């Protein structure tokens, strides 16, 4: 018996014509997005790359001068002294590691709590934790400054009224790190919890029922069912957090100004300061921004590789 071939059908030409026409329409519909992407992303990126090799005023090609200016590799190899830009990368990596790990653990645990709350209480909790997501980093920092301010913050007012000495969140010990990390976690906590919550709800109940029949306790269900099924959500959240935290600027700018002694200086904050300093080569800011972009892309590639996401079996 001959195999069925859809192309042998009498309406073949008519179907192909429609297929061709659909493709044309699809390309037409993609065109605006492609044009916008070209005008606002690809062309500026290429221009930025070219400018990073040029002197700002004359347009003369200085090749890697701007990159050397921000990275300071010669001095690093010569005397071991890292430039502020390199120091800021170390800080950003530290913040990213602490914030990412804390956020994943906290939001996962809170999503589990949400799942077990009754509907009414759960809705109130979801709304409350989501509110900070609408607040900008600048506003969040102002709110936290009202708590932590050395001169008149709520925490220090309470300490003074209790007869204790006030603490300087901007300078003392590990407090500057806390002053940056806590508002950042607060800002992203709601969104990431809801993503985790959606992931947990997406796990088929049958898995847990089958595990219960086999005698698995709550801990074993979490280890062998919940966490493996949440893998793609973990990847999504980790990638988002790594990208966002490597570009962190508003919170350290507002809370600590990058201090003390550049301990909370981040790469984007460094570039912001660099841009505002008339005595630095203008295009070194662009070179630094490209280095940050490449670094984030490399870190993300590493994260993708390390925590491989799995395609849905429905696809």
């Amino acid at each position, binding site marked *: 018996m001959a195999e069925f071939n859809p192309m042998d059908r009498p309406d073949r030409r008519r179907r192909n014509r429609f297929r061709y026409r659909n493709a044309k329409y699809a390309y037409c519909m993609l065109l605006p997005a492609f044009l916008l992407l070209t005008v606002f992303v690809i062309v500026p990126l290429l221009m930025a790359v070219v400018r990073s090799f040029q002197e700002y005023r004359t347009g003369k090609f200085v090749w890697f001068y701007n990159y050397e200016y921000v990275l300071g590799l010669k001095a690093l190899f010569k*005397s071991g002294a890292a430039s502020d830009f390199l120091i800021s990368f170390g800080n950003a990596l530290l913040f990213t590691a602490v914030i990412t790990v804390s956020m994943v653990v906290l939001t996962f645990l809170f999503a589990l709590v949400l799942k077990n709350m009754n509907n009414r209480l759960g809705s109130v909790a979801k709304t409350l934790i989501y509110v900070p997501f609408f607040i900008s980093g600048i506003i969040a920092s102002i709110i936290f400054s009202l708590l932590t*301010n*050395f*001169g008149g913050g709520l925490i220090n007012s309470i300490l003074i009224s209790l007869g204790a000495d006030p603490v300087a969140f901007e300078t003392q010990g590990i407090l500057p790190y806390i002053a940056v990390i806590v508002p950042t976690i607060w800002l992203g906590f709601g969104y990431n919890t809801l993503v985790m919550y959606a992931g947990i709800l997406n796990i088929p109940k049958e898995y847990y029922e089958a595990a219960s029949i086999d005698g698995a306790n709550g801990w074993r269900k979490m280890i062998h069912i919940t966490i493996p099924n949440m893998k793609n959500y973990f990847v999504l959240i980790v990638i988002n957090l790594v990208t966002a935290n490597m570009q962190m600027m508003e919170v350290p700018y507002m809370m600590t*100004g990058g*201090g003390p002694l550049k301990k909370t200086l981040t790469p984007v904050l460094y570039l912001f300061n660099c841009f505002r300093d008339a005595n630095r080569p203008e295009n070194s800011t662009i070179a630094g921004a490209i280095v940050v972009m490449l670094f984030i892309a490399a870190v993300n590639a590493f994260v993708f590789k390390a925590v491989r996401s799995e395609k849905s079996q429905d696809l």
Partner: protein
Amino acid sequence: MKKLLAIGLAAVTSLSLLSFAGCGGGGGGKVEAGATKVVVYLQDFEAWSNEHMNKMIDEFNSNLEDGIQLEARFFQDEAYPDALASARESGNAPDIFMCSYGNLYGTVVSHDYAEPLNGLMKDEYLDDITDTVKPMVTFGGNVYAYPQLTEASALLFYRKDIFLEAGVTEPPKSWADLLSVCAKIKPVLGKGQYTLGLPIYSALGWATYGLQYNAAGSVALNDEWTECLVDCDGYRALAGLWYDLYAGGYVPAGNVTARGYNDIIEGLCMNKLAMTFAGSWSIAEIMNSYPDLKDKIGVVPLPTLSGNSGETTASNGGWTYCVSSASKHKDLAAKVLEWFFAEDAARTARFFEAACYSKSAVTKSVQQYIAENAREDLRDWLNVVTEVCSLAIPEPTYSWEISTAVSGMLEYVALNSNANKTTLIEQQIKACVSKIERMMEQQGRNPAYSAG
């Protein structure tokens, strides 16, 4: 209906654009027929300062026979450089614009954005600029900007009532005096009160130029930017002072006020500080916001390393006005500058009166006018500001990272004042020099020095 909607939308858009651009405008009232419009870009300052400037612009425009209609546009400090750059790039550079002393060479003269005033303004007006300030606006023999004012970066403000309570009879003159006064004051203060307010964070980079010069006879680099001068006894003494002040627990660990050093005087007025370093602009803040405290507050120059008076203890910051090289009406723009700052000392002096003499005049004629006509109740403070500004150095124009290398050294010493003093200071001097030398390689020689 559609037409109405379109008009409404256009009106809303125009209003929004105006508000985004931060445009305000002086120059209300009658418009001079056939007059040439001269545009000036101004930076927004304190309310009293903006109010004074608007009054002056209205007064200028009330003359309907000079052939000039002055149009002022005010911009917030962050938006000002962007507005100026956009105007230049689009071929609409203002005829007159403001520039700080520190940015004059790097962002204006080296880019040929300003027209030399020699030939545009009368020589007698250029010669009227004081000897301290003239080099700050002169490059290659040409005067590129007419100065408006100078401000001392640091004075010592103190509470007379707390001094009295602690048995301190006079303000400190030397760094050793400062430490001994701090030791006397500390025991009489309560929780949340501190002996001495100092600049911290970025302000530590610029508010200590004067003390650096006082201790070392120079700032971090020589004038040509070919030699780092930090590895000397003067910088060691300065680091030692910072160490002792923090080790003694005299200085608050953080900012006592919202805007740090800029409004640190509020800490003194609100009884959180017994003494504080603060810029001369703080005098206007006291007179405007805390006039009742005027008699309880004393103002003197910062103590010096040697204890001698008549030495440099501050740097001069402040503002100048340039005529755009792209202006089509340079001669008229120069006339505007003459009217505002040069031809009538009494008229120019009104600004300093409004500022409660918290800023120093920069021309000999205005200084003389103020000396003869100043308010008696502010004469002591005026004398201090005038003296400190006349001895102050210009802010260095080398890379800001060099200034932060020095401030980083002081900050490190302050935050580690439980470590061995000598070892700590030696380590930090070495680290600071290493960092500055790296920056020197990157920035090259001082272009302004080569220019003259």
